[in-house]
């Protein structure tokens, strides 16, 4: 397939590996903050191609993993209401809440429908006018514009039984918080598809304030190797900056139309991240003008069970990049993709699942 096969060329990847080895003189830690990158890196065995000086660590880039348990608990509480239909991306269905999952609730009779797109959720709302349709809006800047488009559409088409429960988040506050916390890294592999929407401007503070480079990367092995080369070169030359490797999909200014839709529907609010806690302006709240489609406003009173965090799960430390999945005592024995204890094992973009599948 065009735009994929060429970027899987073994020879090119190896030639890039050699270049990295040639120019790399000091040990560096590079962090990827996108679950898609975590998966590709493990799947294609990128660490095996790198010299000993270059270490890769995973960060908080898996939306399912950073989402709070109380969000899941509240979604479950919604699903227990008789007049509610939950619509959700498949990723969330098996994520453990304090005592249950959406999947278990569905087995018990809750009306929970997996959709591929918010537009499908709107159709469910259109066909079930007497029910309240709650759409679970999670994801970063890549996914949030779709949610904005869905809310705008619901308003225009008068679909007033459609509500979004938003846990959308934005990436830059988490990238800065990690450095503020003292996590030792030397550069960021920038999230490719988030940047497709945002462009490169949102990262400018990182080289300016922290002296760390950000290279926005594609997802194929050649992309990742090229990105690592660019970062190592920046570090060796003492020249941190924001660069784009993924030029075929990321324009410096991003997708302006999608940004406008985001601004129209959402405003920033403080939000909680697993591993990082509450970060200022890191979440997206539905604006007052659109509150008719905000589940939190329109269905305020639900009985949410008390929060219980899983014992022994070190998902938070993994998302901060200070521990690796194999350091978790539950990894691979108690906690597996079939029987996940924490969110990092459930999500197809979670570091624990990536290690379980490709690097056990």
């Amino acid at each position, binding site marked *: 397939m065009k735009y994929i096969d060429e970027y899987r060329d073994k020879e090119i990847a190896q*030639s890039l590996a050699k270049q990295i080895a*040639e120019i790399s003189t000091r040990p560096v830690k590079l962090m990827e903050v996108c679950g898609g990158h975590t998966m590709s890196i493990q799947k294609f065995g990128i660490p095996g191609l790198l010299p000993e000086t270059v270490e890769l660590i995973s960060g908080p880039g898996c*939306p399912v993993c950073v989402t709070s348990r109380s969000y899941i608990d509240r979604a479950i509480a919604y699903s227990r209401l008789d007049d509610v239909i939950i619509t959700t991306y498949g990723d969330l269905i098996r994520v453990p809440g304090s005592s249950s999952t959406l999947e278990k609730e569905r087995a018990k009779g809750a009306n929970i429908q997996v959709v591929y797109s918010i537009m499908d959720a709107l159709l469910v709302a259109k066909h079930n006018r007497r029910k309240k349709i709650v759409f679970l809006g999670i*994801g970063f800047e890549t996914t949030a*514009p779709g949610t904005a*488009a869905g809310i705008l559409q619901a308003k225009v088409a008068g679909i007033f039984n459609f509500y979004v429960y938003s846990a959308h988040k934005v990436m830059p506050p988490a990238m800065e918080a990690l450095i503020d916390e003292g996590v030792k890294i030397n550069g960021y592999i920038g999230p490719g598809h988030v940047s497709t929407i945002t462009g490169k401007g949102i990262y400018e503070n990182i080289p300016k304030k922290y002296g760390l480079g950000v290279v926005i990367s594609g997802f194929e092995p050649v992309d990742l190797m090229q990105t690592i080369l660019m970062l190592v070169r920046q570090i060796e030359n003492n020249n941190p900056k924001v660069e784009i490797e993924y030029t*075929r999909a990321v324009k410096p200014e991003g997708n302006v*139309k999608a940004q406008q*839709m985001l601004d129209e529907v959402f405003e920033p609010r403080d939000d909680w991240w697993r591993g990082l806690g509450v970060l200022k302006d890191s979440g997206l709240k539905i604006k007052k003008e659109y509150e008719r489609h905000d589940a939190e406003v329109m269905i305020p009173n639900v009985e949410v069970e008390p929060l219980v965090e899983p014992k022994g799960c070190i998902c938070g430390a993994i998302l901060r990049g200070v521990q690796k999945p194999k350091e978790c005592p539950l990894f691979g024995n108690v906690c597996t993709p079939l029987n996940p204890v924490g969110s990092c094992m459930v999500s197809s*973009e979670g570091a624990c699942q990536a290690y379980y599948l490709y690097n056990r």
Partner: protein
Amino acid sequence: MCLSIPAKVEKINGETARCSVGGSTYEANLQLLVHEQVQEGDYVLIHTGFAIQKLDAEEAKASLDTFAAFNQLNNEMDEEEKKLNKRLI
């Protein structure tokens, strides 16, 4: 969920486009792009049902050309190193 896939635009139909991904077809929503900028035959990235960006053929070619040039330089240096029997860098 974060994954986005490149797909080829086969037929534009108002606010949606029929796209092919590998062997299968998919109806993608075009609302997040400025419509006039998408044409049949283009490649777009699809994420949760929405085309979120057009893939830039020239940029793709340019980076592939750079990789190829790299590779060639690398091979030439290998040859030279072998001949001289010492490392260049």
